């Protein structure tokens, strides 16, 4: 399901990926905000994130790597404002950003702000039981319906494959966890069990209570 949400048209407007996933696109123009972050290098003409954002055309897909660094550079308010601008601006087809939550203090608050803004927010979860990665995503449909799901993903060659996590069948689980019956007689050469007559006489015995 996740794969189809990522690929169906019209593309979902704001994809927020939290964790460590990389997304790549075609016809990429790189706006370099990484090498001269504070404008210390006076030889380069430093562009503002907002001015780049306002120059974007229809049909552009914006990929921002990474949101935490944008917050470091421009502060939370400015970054939120720019993303809001990008989202509401008609024409920009899709905005994709990666948010490393371990790079910010107060990640719960910050992730909530951007999750609110996003239309598809994917959170990478640790692996559990199976070897496939896990994602927890929230998808907001255009009609207003919100779908929350946990799915597993893997890469088969170049293909990104996602599948719903199957609920394990309780019968099968019980079968695998029940240990096979052990016959005590076979455990050792000593006679451990009791024959029926021995059991009877044991039951009949009155124990002296002193």
């Amino acid at each position, binding site marked *: 399901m996740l794969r189809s949400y990522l690929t169906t048209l019209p593309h979902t407007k704001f994809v927020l990926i939290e964790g460590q996933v990389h997304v790549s696109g075609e016809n990429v123009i790189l706006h370099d905000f990484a090498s*001269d972050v*504070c404008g*210390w290098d006076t030889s380069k003409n430093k562009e503002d994130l907002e001015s780049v954002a306002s120059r974007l055309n229809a049909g552009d897909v914006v990929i921002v790597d990474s949101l935490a*660094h944008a917050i470091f550079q421009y502060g939370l308010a400015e970054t939120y404002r720019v993303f809001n601008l990008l989202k509401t601006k008609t024409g920009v087809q899709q905005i994709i950003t990666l948010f*490393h939550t371990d790079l910010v203090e107060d990640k719960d608050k910050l992730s909530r702000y951007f999750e609110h803004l996003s239309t598809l927010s994917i959170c990478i979860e640790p692996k559990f039981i199976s070897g496939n990665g896990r994602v927890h995503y929230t998808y907001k449909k255009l009609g207003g319906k919100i779908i929350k799901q946990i799915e597993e993903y893997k890469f088969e060659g170049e293909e990104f494959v996602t599948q719903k996590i199957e609920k394990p069948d309780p019968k099968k689980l019980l079968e695998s966890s029940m240990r096979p019956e052990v016959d005590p007689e076979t455990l050792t050469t000593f006679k451990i069990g009791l024959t029926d007559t021995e059991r009877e006489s044991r039951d009949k015995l009155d124990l002296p209570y002193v």
Partner: protein
Amino acid sequence: MSLGDPRISNPVLSALKIKLEDRIISVKENGHADSNFILTHLIKQILYEKNKLCLVSFHNSIDHYQNVGKKLGYDLLNAVEANEVKLIEPIKDIVENIGFEENYLQENKENVVKCLYFDIKKSLDELLGGSDSQAYLVIDDLSHLLDLGVESSLIVNFANYCVNLINTDGISVVVNSHVSSKIDEIISSNLQYIADVHIDVSPLKTGRSTDVTGLITIERLSEKSQYHFKAFDRGIKTFHPGESIYHLYK
């Protein structure tokens, strides 16, 4: 390769396997562990390979590096004389500025890191000046900028600037950061995301031991390896976890 090659004979260097292609190396020092030996051993390798070094030390004095260097088999001050090594010692400058709000102790923290960055850039340019060798920038350690009152976003930006120096062929960056608070984690994680090699030095989870000083975890894109290590007076021995008995009590 001869037996004299420390990249093979030295236990720490042979475990680290740092190659010329490793341009960004991040070292994380957890809790009470001391990751300084990683840096001093890397300096040994750098000098052996006849590469250049720019050492920025916030944590130890140059005398310390000279003393440890002598025990490991290299003379740092000689290398400084021979223009193979440039030293930037914020510690010395800070001591001289106590009482005056200048240089590292000035109010404008962005200026502090900006000036440091330009000092580093100048030193590296002088070291590289026309030669073919690789110049290594070693910073020990980044978390001290927090102690100077520089806020974490500025430190992340400063680290970013230092890392971008690798855009010049011939420069590699080694950054050590000590982690004992959430903010330290942020600074170290930032480097970990972009590092070619991430080296984590931690104490043993269960406490102190006479046989094992700590744990080294070396992470690259493709693989992760762990070693226990024991620090001696004149060097460090490394071994696979659980095998201390074979290596220490032969």
